[in-house]
């Protein structure tokens, strides 16, 4: 796998805050990446720096092996439609699409037209008079039809209704299958996009907290709910990501796979096992304030004592 984007110890500091803190990443060619995290986690800042629209305080970035700043060779292969992208306002969507097509040799006009139809985009109205959702649709049309080697989507679906969002996801998969390229999709709607992603990067307060293949994350944790004592007994020796109690009932999110013997034990003791979605996993991982290490690196997992669980679980 060739790394086409390399980020090494990237830090971005503003006077009052640190937007990115020692971020290091390597993005491979041809994968769909999810860049996830809460608002303000640093996702947009990262993408802006990768496309030379913002500058690092320290550390460096290489796209296709080169510094992207003022580098036409590199920048011409990128497309970045922002969350609140500004367009020449008095132009109509078709004019914007035609202009975009000049910049991208692989522009897919048929896809653009199809998307305009599916999003029901008005074609005779100037962009400044479009609704928020229609504005997002314009951005999606451009970013998808451009077929750039690396496409960045920054929360592309704001204002789109559920049907339109699904159109976006479906066309994204379809066009990606037809014309594979690197896609970076930033989102805070994790569950909706989870199945589209091949690799997941999660930022929290400017730091990378998860950087792993989506398939590795799925099924890597599970939610065990039941009687406090039984759950505590089961959780011994396993890494607890999150614990909640309600009376005598404890719910824990445990990291690790479930073995056959686990399954048997659980079935017998009447404890329920529920799947943990990508969103729950990410939320649970971020809940620990000192969790600075990226998931997937080795590091001693915190093992939980049964006593500790029961004590905190409010045994009556």
């Amino acid at each position, binding site marked *: 796998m060739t790394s086409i984007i390399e980020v090494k110890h990237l830090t971005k500091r503003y006077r009052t805050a640190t937007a990115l803190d020692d971020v290091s990443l390597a993005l491979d060619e041809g994968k769909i990446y999810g860049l996830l995290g809460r608002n303000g986690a640093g996702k947009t800042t990262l993408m802006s720096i990768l496309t030379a629209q913002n500058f690092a305080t320290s550390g460096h970035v290489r796209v296709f092996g080169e510094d992207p700043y003022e580098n036409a060779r590199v920048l011409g292969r990128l497309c970045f439609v922002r969350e609140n992208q500004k367009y020449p306002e008095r132009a109509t969507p078709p004019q914007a699409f035609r202009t975009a097509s000049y910049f991208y040799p692989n522009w897919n006009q048929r896809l653009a037209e199809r998307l305009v139809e599916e999003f029901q985009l008005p074609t005779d109205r100037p962009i400044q008079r479009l609704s928020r959702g229609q504005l997002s649709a314009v951005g999606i049309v451009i970013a998808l039809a451009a077929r750039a080697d690396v496409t960045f989507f920054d929360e592309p679906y704001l204002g789109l209704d559920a049907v339109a969002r699904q159109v976006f996801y479906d066309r994204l998969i379809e066009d990606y299958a037809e014309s594979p390229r690197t896609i970076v999709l930033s989102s805070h709607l994790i569950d909706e996009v989870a199945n589209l992603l091949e690799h997941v990067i999660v930022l929290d307060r400017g730091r990378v907290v998860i950087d792993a293949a989506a398939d590795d994350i*799925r099924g890597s944790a599970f939610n065990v709910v039941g009687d406090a004592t039984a759950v505590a007994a089961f959780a011994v020796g396993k890494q607890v990501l999150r614990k909640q109690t309600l009376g005598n009932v404890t719910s824990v999110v445990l990291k690790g796979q479930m073995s056959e013997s686990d399954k048997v034990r659980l079935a017998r003791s009447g404890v329920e096992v529920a799947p943990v979605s990508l969103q729950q996993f990410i939320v649970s991982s971020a809940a620990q304030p000192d969790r600075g290490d990226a998931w997937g690196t080795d590091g001693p997992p915190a093992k939980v004592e049964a006593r500790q669980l029961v004590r905190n679980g409010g045994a009556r």
Partner: protein
Amino acid sequence: MVDDSKALFLQIAERVEDSIVDGSLAEDSQAPSTNELAAFYRINPATAAKGIALLVDKGVLHKRRGIGMFVAPGARRALIEERRAAFASTYLEPLAAEARKLGIDVDELIQLLKERFSERTKA
């Protein structure tokens, strides 16, 4: 649809296996392509490809050069046997646990099962 309890590619593989077991995907017929699976389940094509690769490794599917993936002869029988072997732990353990919780004893359980089976053969 697909859920999060286990890796997506495993679920995709299972779905394809399901359709082989229930007969909707016949042996020697062409399996759905990676892109078709991706579009249908709305998942990343690479994930779908992983699921297919798993089935190829397992011998359930084989590749015919230049054409695509086909269901291997004997795959259905092999899958049924595999599932029979896991039947007890997958279905019977939870069944027994729930029955115990509700105070349903073995004889009652057998009676219930008999009723279900005769219903199904009638229908």
